[in-house]
């Protein structure tokens, strides 16, 4: 055979082999680890929404032809379990990124491991400022961590903004008592409350932090009532059913507003036998409210598949999986550093709003940007078995209504 004779077939064979190899590479699924807390309502929402997101993306052809494969773990609300799950996900199941937890303490335990193992990690429910503060202060180490929900500082800010519009103006409320559980996420929350509530028109009369193990709230409510505030501003997540039920049973004449994470779930009404009536809380989204064109289709599909509407962490996790997929597409690879760079450039409309992350020079590096047109969350109130959205004005579908045992400031009426 002449030289030209074997050159072309060889080149052809080589090209074919190369194409075959790249095609085989392209077939390889994108592995993502998901760590949630199956026994907790918010934690279970997380893993379910992740599964839905993966299914939706795969149904539309995956990411550049590659399917998303999820590896799900239950951390039993324990930081140490979460760390072991994280290690397993990385060394055994070879995931390229991890989506995890709504508990701040757990997220903070995973953050150093994400740094040590160089694995992009996004938490979709935790709130502590610490998560993004560490990224800001030690960027090169912690850059793999992203905070996929509003930081406590912005949650507090959104609550101050909402209560100003909903309570101070219409009902002439002037004073408040802060009631929060002693946990990692409420420390920065309370600091911001103390700053922004007076600016919103509510003087802070007292600040009560209680042990998250508390089951008897009577002494706390009596202590609050003795100060005679117009409203109780809450910061509760670990507890929810017990204080709410006792508030109703004892007919504490002061309304509760603020953040009550358990109140954002659809089963809360049943769990409290209707004691939730009148409770105001901030949340990521609420049923029937189209924050974006994607919000309602997601919540309806979730409801159909799982029987309940999603918790706030469901919305954020659904979006976070899409954020990761979008970043992989733009980066053209699952290499950790390239993925991080791509994620920083995220500009994507999700179910809770428009996702963008703060940059290296901002205070809350890698946290979600807060603001109108981006993500603000909503404020809702339980009324007669339904979650009614009150704020922002553009998303509102109802007005504030309080149960009969509440005493409002005399000047309103």
């Amino acid at each position: 055979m002449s030289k030209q004779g074997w050159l072309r077939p060889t080149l052809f064979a080589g090209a074919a082999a190369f194409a075959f190899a790249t095609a085989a590479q392209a077939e390889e699924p994108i592995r993502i680890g998901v760590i949630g807390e199956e026994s907790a309502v918010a934690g279970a929402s997380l893993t379910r929404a992740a599964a839905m997101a993966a299914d939706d993306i795969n149904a539309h052809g995956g990411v550049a032809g590659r399917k998303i494969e999820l590896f799900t773990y239950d951390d039993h609300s324990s930081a140490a379990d979460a760390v072991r799950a994280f290690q397993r996900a990385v060394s055994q199941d070879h995931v390229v990124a991890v989506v995890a937890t709504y508990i701040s303490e757990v997220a903070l335990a995973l953050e150093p491991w994400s740094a040590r193992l160089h694995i992009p990690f996004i938490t979709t429910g935790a709130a502590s400022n610490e998560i993004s503060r560490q990224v800001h202060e030690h960027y090169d180490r912690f850059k793999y961590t992203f905070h996929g929900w509003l930081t406590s500082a912005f949650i507090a800010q959104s609550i101050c903004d909402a209560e100003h519009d909903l309570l101070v103006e219409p009902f002439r409320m002037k004073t408040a008592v802060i009631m929060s559980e002693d946990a990692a996420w409420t420390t920065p929350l309370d600091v911001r409350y103390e700053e922004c509530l007076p600016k919103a028109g509510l003087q802070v009369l007292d600040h009560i932090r209680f042990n998250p193990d508390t089951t008897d709230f009577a002494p706390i409510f009596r202590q609050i009532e003795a100060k005679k505030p117009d409203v109780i501003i809450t910061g509760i997540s670990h507890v929810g059913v017990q204080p709410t039920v006792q508030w109703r049973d004892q007919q504490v004449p002061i309304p509760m507003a603020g953040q009550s994470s358990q109140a954002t779930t659809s089963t809360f009404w049943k769990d409290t036998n209707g004691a939730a009536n009148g409770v105001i809380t901030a949340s990521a989204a609420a049923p029937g409210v189209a924050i974006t064109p994607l919000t309602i289709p997601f919540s309806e599909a979730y409801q159909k598949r799982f029987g309940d509407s999603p918790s706030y962490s469901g919305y954020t996790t659904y979006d976070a999986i899409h954020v990761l997929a979008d970043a992989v597409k733009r980066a053209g690879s699952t290499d950790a550093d390239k993925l991080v760079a791509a994620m920083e450039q995220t500009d994507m409309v999700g179910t809770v709003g428009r996702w963008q992350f703060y940059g290296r020079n901002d205070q809350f590096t890698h946290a979600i940007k807060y603001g109108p047109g981006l993500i603000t969350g909503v404020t809702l109130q339980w009324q007669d078995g339904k979650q009614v959205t009150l704020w922002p004005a553009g998303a509102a579908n109802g007005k504030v209504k309080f149960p009969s045992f509440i005493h409002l400031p005399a000047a309103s009426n």
Partner: protein
Amino acid sequence: MLALQILIDGFAISALYGLGAVGFTLLFGVSGVLNLAHGGIMVIAALIGWQAAGGLGLGTWLGSAVGVLAALVASYATYFVVVRPIQRSRAIPREETEIFVLTGTLLWGIMIQVGMAYFYSDNPVTMRPLIDGVTNIAGVRTPTNEILIAVISWVAIGLLWLLVNRTRAGKALLAASINPRGLVLLGFELDRIYLMVWTIYGVLAGIAGVLLASFLGVGTSNIGNLTASAFSIVVMGGLGSVSGSLVAAYVVGYLETFTAYEIAPTLRPIPALILLVLVVYLRPQGLLGRR
């Protein structure tokens, strides 16, 4: 005003603590079993009762009855599946039986907690108040339900007292707790006595669980604390002593309430814990316990 609030709130919570502790200590006194699945059985009553009342539409009173029944079933399960086989096992040396029973009930308690959390999540549930509304007691606004709960707790304890001191079966129970061998010699079957005490235990734990759900709300995440609390009270009162448990329950209940009101809600469990340490160091058999 504050003093009256403390008096009233403390009374109700102590009554509930007492009900839970009394069953626990009776079980130990008569059958020698420290049932570390205690919290689990109480929460089974609460969760099943809640589901029966709401989900199955049976209403509060009937739902509560179903809850108590569920606790009774769980109590029997604990006895027949865990405790009795260990006590009868020939592979375990006699002096180690207690340890194995304790470990067994602990494992059983964990199984209950995880199993119930699987079906109900770890969110607490509440029973609708048995009576709605509030009552004004000398200026202190108290949920009427709270008063009813204290009353029911004491009625249950009173019935227990009647049973133990006035009926033949009850006196046999009492005798069994003092001298089981003597009882056997007199012709009583210990097995029937054990069955009786586990029945009484199941009912008491069930009532306590359902009332707790109605008063404060309770879920699987509270199981550990419930067992620990009953356990501490019983240690302080004296293992096996029913009256000791009641006294200790009130001491603990009032200490906690007073601390929560006057000092700080975060420090609520501390004085009771300090008392526990003191009792363990100075008088380990408890206030009214036998050595």
